[in-house]
């Protein structure tokens, strides 16, 4: 293998690092990895707004900071609003930077949905990334509206697991008619980086829904950080797709029909599920997938 070939193989994602090691995330944390990738994709001209979430800890307690860019730590429900203000403040002083709002699922699906919805309506020029670990992991694994049906959390105990489906944030954001909405996972780094690079060139509100493994909350081995999201995509639990100006395109259509059970059984949070319950999840997944295929066919929808 020639040297240039080696280089090519390695450079599937940008080489520059903007995140320091030594962050206090758990072993095999998908959220930390997602940030590492995101900053590589967006480059040094980036400012980050972080509401209360695991990342407000991962970024380092006072007086330390894990990123090579400015960070603004803000309240749980305000990521999109602070990002809007920051962008406006920069604009008025004719300074430029990519403003990245970086929030967890609690801060996006629940308590932050209002600020996000409004920013999207105003079409603020920000990139909003929701790293979704499917519960309030920072406070200790409580149910959020991103928690999937049937999952265990500390507020939905095994005897009474979550009985509501996961909120479909992708659809909700698509219905806001913003220029770019995309799903991604930490199991597909190249895909995530590609989408971010594309999003960087677009003006307006851009939304990312990133599935980020949480070994602590999912009760899964840390080394499966990339494997689990890949399984989620292969089993169609979490389809990889983007919606550009209202047009759907699915990035990965698994050829094989892998049952969701394959994805569920690796995670302790689904350990209690009966076959019947798994079938229910399977049906729901199939239905959503079919619907998505249909939407892709219809062309522009928003």
């Amino acid at each position, binding site marked *: 293998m020639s040297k240039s070939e080696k280089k090519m193989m390695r450079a599937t994602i940008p080489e520059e690092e903007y995140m320091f090691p030594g962050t206090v995330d758990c072993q095999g944390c998908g959220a930390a990895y997602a940030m590492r990738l995101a900053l590589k994709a967006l480059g*040094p*001209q980036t*400012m980050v*707004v972080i509401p209360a979430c695991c990342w*407000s*800890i991962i*970024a*380092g*307690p*006072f*007086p*330390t*900071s*894990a*990123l*090579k*860019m*400015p*960070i*603004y*730590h*803000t*309240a749980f*429900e*305000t990521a*999109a*609003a*602070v*990002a*809007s*203000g*920051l*962008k*406006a*403040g*920069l*604009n*008025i*002083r004719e*300074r430029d*930077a990519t403003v990245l709002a970086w929030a967890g699922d609690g801060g996006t699906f629940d308590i932050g949905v*209002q*600020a996000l*919805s*409004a920013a999207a*309506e*105003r079409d603020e020029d920000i990139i909003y990334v929701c790293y979704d670990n499917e519960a309030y992991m920072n406070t200790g694994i409580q149910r959020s509206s991103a928690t999937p049906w049937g999952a265990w959390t500390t507020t939905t105990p095994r005897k009474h697991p979550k009985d509501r489906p996961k909120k479909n944030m992708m659809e909700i954001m698509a219905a806001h008619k913003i220029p770019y909405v995309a799903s991604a996972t930490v199991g597909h780094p190249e895909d995530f980086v590609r989408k971010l690079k594309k999003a960087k060139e677009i003006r307006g509100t851009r939304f990312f829904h990133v599935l980020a493994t949480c070994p602590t909350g999912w009760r899964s081995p840390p080394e499966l950080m990339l494997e689990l999201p890949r399984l989620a995509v292969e089993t169609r639990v979490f389809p990889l797709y983007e919606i550009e100006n209202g047009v759907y395109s699915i990035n990965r259509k698994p050829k094989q029909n892998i049952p969701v059970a394959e994805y569920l059984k690796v995670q302790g949070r689904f350990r209690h599920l009966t076959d019947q319950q798994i079938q229910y999840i399977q049906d729901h997944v199939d239905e959503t997938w079919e619907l998505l295929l249909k939407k892709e066919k219809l062309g522009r929808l928003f």
Partner: protein
Amino acid sequence: MSTVKVITGNHAASFGARDSRAEVIAAYPITPQTQIVELLSEFCADGTLKAKFIKVESEHSAMAACIGASAAGARAYTATSAHGLALMHEMLHWAANGRHPVVMANVNRAMGPPWSIWTDQNDSLAQRDTGWLQFYCESNQEVYDTTMIAFKVCEQVLLPGMLVLDAFILSHTYEPVEMPDQELIDEFLPPFDPPYKMDLKDPHAFGALTTPEWYMELRYLIQEAHEKALVKVREVEKEFGETFGRHYGPLELYRCDDAEEVILIAGSTASTTKDAVDIMRKEGRKIGLARIKLFRPFPNKEIRDIASRVNKMIVIDRNISFGNQGIFFNEIKASLYQTKHTPPVYGFVAGLGGRDMKIDDITGIVKQAETCNIEEILWWGVKL
């Protein structure tokens, strides 16, 4: 050349923000504040104010956006009232504790339920622990002037400031307001340039998680900044007076030189009180008025000074702290504690939810204070 316009208190606030060259405005409508943002959005639409107006979806986000803008190094302004202020509560702490000199006009309105849109001071006074500077204005002119004073002081001490005007009585009442030359104002109020901002060349993390190891020191610095702010307010108001010819102070004294009794009050009711004082003076009463303009930082020294010269103090609160007393009353009493000469202090609660305060009410209060017990909450104007 300065110009004089006859405008409402709300518009005085808008003009104040315009002439202070606010750069980012994020606001949400609420009665009776709406005219402030309406006029500001007109200024932005017709280009007389070079600012970015973010039309947010709630007051909570309004303050959040102001914080973001301030962190970016821009001069941020907003306006709100009552429940809007209440919804911001969490972010008020954030703005002060994050040391962002946002300036906000708050139109004093009563808190619900039952729902009221008329004036009382509970909304702003209940925010007394948030670390915001609070200025209570008496006239539209003062609203206009105080906007730039507030920006100047706040930006020097890195704390946010709230200027407070009464709903309807000021907010919707037309008064002449003199507006100086922009050049003069620019000289008085230079552009905002914070020591730390969100900067790609000098990256920092703002407001990161702070363990007990450091948290208390940062809090201590805020209290210190308030002490500094008290000095700054005196300085800046003096400078303002010298430049523009209008003098205010943390505690405005009216006919207090030889007064034996003094009324303490904040807000526009002070004007009515001045008339009442004139009338009572004519009747031979040696009475004066001390208007509290600055509530945070609290002008301890000024309050103690006036207390040492009179035999009786009457505090009129347009607010009440449930389970205790009127808030001004409480703070003034605390301030006077153990002074050498402490006159009796009477605390009246009056005018809640916009119940009108007329000259008769003031003279009535003064009269009632002759006979009543100082230990109780004294009610004025409530129907029995």
